[in-house]
């Protein structure tokens, strides 16, 4: 019952390409699934696994994350002991560059002072580019029972992704799930029989401390290449399969696909099998006015719909005017779509306004992204 686990979340990814969507925000604060942000899914995994002591490592553009998380109340993480803490990239006062780490290892090293003060025995690390419902107590139990030095969660099928995006780590394991090598995926591939890392790592805090100190002293900065791959023969590094649905979000098409997958009832059930916490906005319920046509869509509180919406995901407070048609699109918070607009395969960022009669059409393989605060 007592928790002796510290959660570490990387709020950014080193390999993402989300165009305008991450221009002024860190990956973890990107809206996802209607009313959520990516961080909500990650944090809820920890809270639902009874891990209440969590650090979030940031690199840059993390203001939107601070805004969204506030004091952490909505995730029940405003605590005297433990709770949520955002580690800003200032930690090393000696450095003259701020906010730019040479790699994950340097990020960990610069924040080691805070990590060391935690009384936790184990650490569960998550990234922000792959989402998946996971019970961290299960992976921890497996880690302890199998006497692993490091446990790395993986997925076999990347369910939900048509292709495996560039930059994903492919793990080579023997039949006992012991990892003996790691390949960084160089092409967007369609392969079937690979095991992909999903960014969740479990290890003892003491081991993390010594591995990071060691790597830093040799000028090695990449956790996967310089620790997992390099030490796979000396340490007992094991894989742990996650069988739940995977949402991979490192490109615009991946982001679009991941959102659209939520329209599938089975995927949705799997994603929401445990509560997903998010910031409470006290919006009013959605209002459907006379003449609206809404089909196969996810709609959030505070929306007001007079037009047609199909195969789309609407965040909070979106207005769709009379005669407007929104198809296969993702509409973020407070966007306003006026009369007789037509949108197809479009991602509208927050607070965008689309004036009457505008038609915007993207394609499955290249959705159009409209930047935050734009007026079209």
């Amino acid at each position, binding site marked *: 019952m007592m928790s002796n686990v510290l959660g570490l979340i990387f709020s950014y990814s080193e390999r993402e390409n989300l165009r305008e969507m991450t221009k002024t925000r860190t990956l973890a604060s990107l809206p996802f699934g209607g009313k959520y942000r990516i961080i909500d899914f990650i944090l809820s995994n920890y809270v639902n696994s009874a891990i209440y002591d969590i650090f979030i490592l940031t690199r840059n553009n993390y203001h939107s994350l601070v805004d969204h998380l506030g004091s952490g109340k909505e995730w029940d993480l405003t605590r005297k002991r433990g709770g949520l803490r955002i580690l800003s990239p200032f930690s090393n006062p000696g450095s003259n560059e701020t906010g730019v780490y040479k790699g994950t290892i340097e990020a960990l090293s610069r924040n080691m002072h805070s990590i060391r003060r935690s009384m936790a025995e184990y650490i569960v690390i998550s990234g922000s580019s792959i989402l998946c419902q996971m019970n961290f107590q299960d992976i921890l139990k497996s880690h302890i029972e199998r006497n692993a030095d490091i446990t790395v969660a993986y997925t076999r099928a990347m369910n939900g992704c048509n292709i495996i995006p560039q930059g994903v780590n492919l793990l080579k394991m023997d039949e006992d799930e012991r990892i003996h090598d790691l390949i960084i995926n160089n092409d967007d591939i369609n392969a079937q029989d690979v095991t992909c890392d999903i960014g969740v790592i479990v290890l003892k805090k003491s081991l993390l401390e010594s591995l990071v100190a060691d790597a830093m002293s040799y000028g090695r900065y990449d956790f996967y290449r310089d620790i997992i791959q390099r030490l796979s023969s000396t340490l007992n590094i094991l894989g742990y399969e996650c069988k739940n649905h995977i949402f991979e979000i490192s490109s615009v098409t991946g982001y679009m696909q991941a959102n659209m997958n939520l329209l599938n009832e089975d995927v*949705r059930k799997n*994603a929401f099998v445990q509560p997903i916490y998010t910031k409470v906005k*006290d919006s*009013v*319920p959605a209002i*459907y006015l006379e003449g609206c046509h809404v089909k196969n869509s*996810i709609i959030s509180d505070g929306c007001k719909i007079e037009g047609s919406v199909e195969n789309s995901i*609407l965040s909070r407070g979106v207005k769709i005017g009379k005669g407007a048609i929104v198809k296969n699109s993702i509409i973020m918070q407070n966007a306003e779509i006026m009369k007789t607009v037509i949108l197809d395969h479009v991602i509208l960022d927050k607070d965008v306004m689309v004036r009457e009669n505008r038609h915007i059409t993207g394609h499955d393989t290249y959705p159009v992204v409209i930047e935050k605060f734009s007026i079209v």
Partner: protein
Amino acid sequence: MIQTNSKEMIAMLLAGGQGSRLGVLTNNVAKPAVPFGGKYRIIDFPLSNCVNSGIDTIGVLTQYQPLELNAYIGNGQPWDLDRLYGGVSILPPYVKGSEGEWYKGTANAIYQNIHFIEMYRPKYVLILSGDHIYKMNYDLMLKHHKEKNADCTIAVLKVPIEEASRFGVMNADDNLKIYEFEEKPKEPKSNLVSMGVYIFTWDKLKEFLIKDEGNKNSDNDFGKNIIPAMLEEGQNLYAYEYNGYWKDVGTVESLWEANMDLLNPNVPIELNDPPWKIYSRNGILPPQCIGENAKLHNSSISEGCKIDGEVENSIIFPGVIIEKDVIVSNSIIMPSTIIESGSLIEYSIIASNVVIEKNSQIGLNKKPILNNEKREITVIGQELIITEGTIVPAGVMVDKSILEKGA
């Protein structure tokens, strides 16, 4: 031990009543905890009015079936009332000497909590009840109270004179000073009726509460005893006129009407009002999902719903499932209720966690409907199961599960 500043005004919210005119809807919950408006409970309105008016210390007096209400209020966080000093406190009756005493009337409930009020050394006390839907800035009322140098200010509403006899009527002079109060008079002399919202200067109220408690014949009620006693002794009582939307939701009909008012753009109750938000405890639910077969007309739908049927002029609360080939019209479906395929629902209030099985018909009127005739409202109580193919006629109130067809 904690040094603190005094509070200028604190609020006391009377939430103890049983609300028997709401029938099966208040079998297991106190009236203020009854769901309203698609995602709220009735008590969200006075609580939100308080915080929006800058009042951060509220005592909620509970007595009847308080468990769900207590759990709903919790630490007050949804209303920003989880304060270190002040915030929201639940005030049930308790044992003082060797035995306990339940609340005898509204005034006695306040009397029993004098000690609580004095902890905050307030100058003014706002008395509210938990069964009205309205948005009101109590700070403006307080300003009026101070300007008039009043001992008690009573918020009043202008109603058509023919309806005034259903209320407590205030007879006031041009300066709004009240010279007479009549409870439900047959021949009302004025169309100013009390909204049940009072500001008292605390010293004065305390004096009258103690006096009233000494009177064995008193009902210990604000309207029946305290206000008349204050008038009799020549205290300064003033009316404060409120012009917005206000509705007592103490009956099934008025609860239904008040919900429907939210769908009517001509009724002046707008909940989507950023500077005057109505706060509520939100369930942890995903956004709503609208299916392939849904048809939606002039309706309000909340988080966690899955709608695949037809919904018209209705208010659908969080977590409701409406399957395909269902038609829901002019109805209120409370949280987590399931309406299975083929069912028809009209002019009904379906309480929370109900299951209406396939091909049932609830509230359908077989009689011809005359012009202007009010449709009777059908009510299904909490957590009931209505078996497949059941027909519940208009105007019925169901308080037991119907598990056999035709039963």
